[in-house]
């Protein structure tokens, strides 16, 4: 079982440091360029996460199916506004998902007579999908952000995140002044935190 489980997650989690997903810049370009194969690949990689986020928020499967359908249709139709230099496709899809979920919730609330409205119970305890769905969404939002930090910030943060080195160990390892390492850590963490917070506002 352990080996099977590992095989199942390999594509997303190859080796340390773990990559957020197997989505690549080439796939970004293919999607932006209208390659329908890239849409199918996006669906394969991200539809379960989209579905889980929706199911948790709406509390029912039918609604989650509708949101999943809506998200990928919206993503494809608005691909001309997709700008890989601003956000990678996984993050963009998470943003569209949050918007589609909000739309689904407000339309269900308006229609109080619908059966779905009666079932409109959010799932704050995360029994659907568990806390892993939120973490996966956050990871997709941070997709490639470490690479985008530039150097030496990227190396500093990789050592802090994945090697669990303290700032003075990093300072010695990279032969950088302690103060420099500390301020890079602060600015890089602020940058990552902003990526997590602006996602729904940005789309």
């Amino acid at each position, binding site marked *: 079982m352990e080996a099977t489980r590992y095989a199942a997650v390999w594509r997303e989690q190859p080796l340390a*440091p773990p990559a957020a997903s*197997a989505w690549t810049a080439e796939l970004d370009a293919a999607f932006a360029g209208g390659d329908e194969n890239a849409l199918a690949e996006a669906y394969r990689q991200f539809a379960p996460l989209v579905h889980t986020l929706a199911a948790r928020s709406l509390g029912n499967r039918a609604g989650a199916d509708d949101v999943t359908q809506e998200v990928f249709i919206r993503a494809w139709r608005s691909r001309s506004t997709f700008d890989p230099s601003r956000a990678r496709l996984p993050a963009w899809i998470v943003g569209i998902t949050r918007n589609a979920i909000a739309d689904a919730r407000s339309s269900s609330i308006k229609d109080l007579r619908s059966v779905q409205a009666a079932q409109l119970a959010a799932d704050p305890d995360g029994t659907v999908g568990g806390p*892993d769905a939120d*973490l996966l969404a956050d990871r997709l939002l941070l997709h490639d952000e470490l*690479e985008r930090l530039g150097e030496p910030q990227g190396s500093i943060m990789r050592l802090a995140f994945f090697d669990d080195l303290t700032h003075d160990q990093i300072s010695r390892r990279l032969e950088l002044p302690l103060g420099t390492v500390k301020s890079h850590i602060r600015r890089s963490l602020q940058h990552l935190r902003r990526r997590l917070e602006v996602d729904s506002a940005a789309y």
Partner: protein
Amino acid sequence: MPHIDPDLLSLMALGEPVASEADNEHLRTCSACAAEHAALRRAVDAARSQPDPGTLTQPSAGVWTAIHRELALDESLAADPLEPERPREPAEQQEPKEAQEPTSLADRRSASRTRGTGTAPRRNTALWLIAAAAAVVIAAAGISWVVTQQSQTPPLAAARLEPLANFATTGTAEVVERGGERELTVELSDQEASGYQEVWLIKPDLSGLVSLGVMDSRSATFAIPPGLNLAEYPIVDVSDEPLDGNPAHSGVSIVRGSLSL
């Protein structure tokens, strides 16, 4: 008391034991600092976590059909991209029908694996071969970076080979120099190919693949062509090749790993 210094708060979010008693007390009582700490902590958790995709729910089979119809996508994409991970219909099964329908994604994946890999659709494999190779490269960049920081003399190149989806085989790959020639030795825990195993060295961006040869046992050694720069071809890949006479990579990989140079 003044708020916690932003540099210090960042280190605290990373889990470094740098806070004084007074800092910790302040964090407990100051909602502004606590909120800031929580927001930074979320970024740290997202970067460090290894969440299990097996806990996710799956869209119903009709969802892709609806998307496909609505967007009038090409006929070749009619099949649900998630289909290889769903259980097959009983008619396609070689083995007796399972007593219970698999429920979680992990179960579904293991269920489809036990039914053999030979029937796995290959339609999207090229795309995800690219994707998986890129993921390895990101990881390899981190590892080789750490290695070069630790030592000026390059260690023996080696790679841990990990199974790809639908396979459970693991293994190792090692480069040794013998009589001025480089050799790659691959050892596998099992032989799972439905066709035959072929060993490749691959460029991170997939712009180049070098076949080293057929591997008909669980351990084999291959000569690395002189002049081939392993830094350019760091990915070791063992594929499952059908006997179809096509010399290209089938797109179905059993194990893969990246050489630490």
